[in-house]
């Protein structure tokens, strides 16, 4: 096992929103390291999982405040970095795929053109070179007939294809880390597995690190290496994805037990009893 610097280091991350009436703490003291692996951050709405991803990319909206003992990318401290360099990291070194391609793709530009633009932005290429690389990228995400799809507009492609295009676009800069925020939640279930497989293959091939943010425990257990279970801004448990069924924290167990399962019918779904002790001090 190589002892290389972790791609992302997060130590005691806190994200706070200062509203006129009170301070809302979205993330309270989260710590983890990301190597060349697939890490999942799982939680329900309000757990702080999305804010974690955004904090790494410096995309936390105002009036949010990000504090951490350490927030580093490949050993470089992200907090003390100057703004230009921080911005340059986005897309080039750390990329983000979001939930709904309908909202993250420019509706008035053809999808091929958008990817080409990303190519020209990150690598100095001519128009023709960018187009070639775009077509190759579209093939890499298993889009047949890339030449035809190149000229389509976002509203003309299906959800699954749109998300694959999104992934293609985000990999253009050849980033080291990909953060995917609910990448398959808006997709049909038959398409979900396919899109995740593509993402997983690309990530492994390029030796990238992946942070997959999701609310879907079973999904991440199938696709990721490690899982952090979050609740109320804190990590409840960190464990191997395949061992999720043996999770020990009552919140993890509660989340799994309240799921209906086609193959293991239950009389009644277990109800999660939220212990205020989990929120901590």
């Amino acid at each position: 096992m190589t002892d290389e610097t972790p791609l992302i280091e997060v130590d005691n991350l806190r994200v706070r929103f200062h509203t006129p009436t009170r301070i809302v703490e979205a993330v309270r003291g989260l710590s983890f390291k990301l190597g060349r692996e697939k890490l999942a951050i799982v939680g329900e709405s309000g757990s702080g999982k999305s804010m974690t991803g955004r904090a790494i990319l410096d995309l936390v909206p105002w009036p949010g405040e990000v504090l951490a003992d350490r927030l580093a990318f490949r050993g470089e401290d992200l907090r003390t970095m100057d703004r230009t360099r921080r911005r340059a990291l986005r897309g080039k070194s750390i990329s983000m795929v979001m939930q709904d391609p309908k909202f993250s793709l420019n509706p008035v530009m053809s999808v091929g053109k958008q990817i080409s633009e990303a190519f020209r932005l990150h690598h100095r290429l001519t128009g023709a070179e960018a187009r070639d690389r775009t077509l190759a990228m579209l093939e890499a995400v298993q889009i047949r007939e890339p030449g035809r799809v190149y000229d389509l507009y976002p509203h003309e492609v299906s959800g699954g294809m749109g998300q694959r295009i999104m992934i293609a676009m985000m990999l253009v800069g050849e980033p080291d880390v990909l953060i995917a925020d609910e990448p398959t939640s808006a997709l049909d279930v038959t398409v979900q597995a396919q899109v995740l497989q593509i993402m997983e293959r690309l990530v492994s091939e390029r030796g990238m690190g992946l942070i997959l943010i999701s609310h879907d425990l079973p999904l991440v257990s199938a696709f990721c290496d490690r899982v952090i279970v979050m609740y109320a801004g804190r990590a409840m448990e960190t464990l191997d994805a395949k061992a999720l069924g043996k999770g020990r924290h009552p919140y993890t167990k509660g989340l799994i037990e309240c799921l209906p399962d086609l193959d293991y019918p239950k009389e009644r779904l277990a109800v999660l009893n939220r212990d205020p002790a989990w929120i901590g001090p």
Partner: protein
Amino acid sequence: MSALPAIEVRNLNVHFGTAHVLRDVSFSVAAGESFGLVGESGSGKSTVLRALSGLNPNWSGTVRFNGRDHVTRPARDFYRQVQMVFQDPFGSLHPRLTVDACLAEPLAIHGIGDPDRRIEQALADVGLDHGFRFRYPNQLSGGQRQRVAIARALILEPSILLLDEPTSALDVSIQAEVLNLLQDLKNRRDLTMVLVSHNLAVVGHMCSRVAVMNGGVIVEEADIDTLRRQGGRHPYTQELLAASRHVALAQPMDQPAMV
């Protein structure tokens, strides 16, 4: 002895302009049964509900509720028989009405007396105490709003409940609470339920029979038990089952590992 089916649908067809969105959809639901309609986006499952509920008058075919023919523009007392719960808890409650006003509305429309008692009872039935009665929707969480939507649907005491993805927009822990609630209410009031969902696990939990839809057609109809044990016969059903199982938990909690 053949009991009258609660819902009988024969050759339901719906066109949106030139698109033929529902083709010859036929199924029937016995009284007191939970029937699932499962499919992905664009399969037409929600369109079936909109036609059954009377929201969409542009359908053709035969639909009968408890033997009575369903017409494209139903009379008012139809709504005392058939009610619907919608998907999005954040869109199904009128933003300017308190929970109380929202529940009083159907009673006022049908001239049903004793509204105070009925409202309190409806809230209690869905597990909300009277502190919620005068809140506005923006003061309620997603799960609470969905409970109010269920209370609103049941306050007219219908015998048939149509549910359009009632828990898709909720967190899993809240989904569990709402599904348990629906099950309790169904048993207590002996409701006939038609549940539409893209989530096979949810349908498997709540329903006894299911129809799988794809491209506006029912490709297969089966008992949940049969589906579970023998898989589907139609290739699309198999694809759906495989995908749903693929993303199911690798090893459930209380089952010993298969060695």
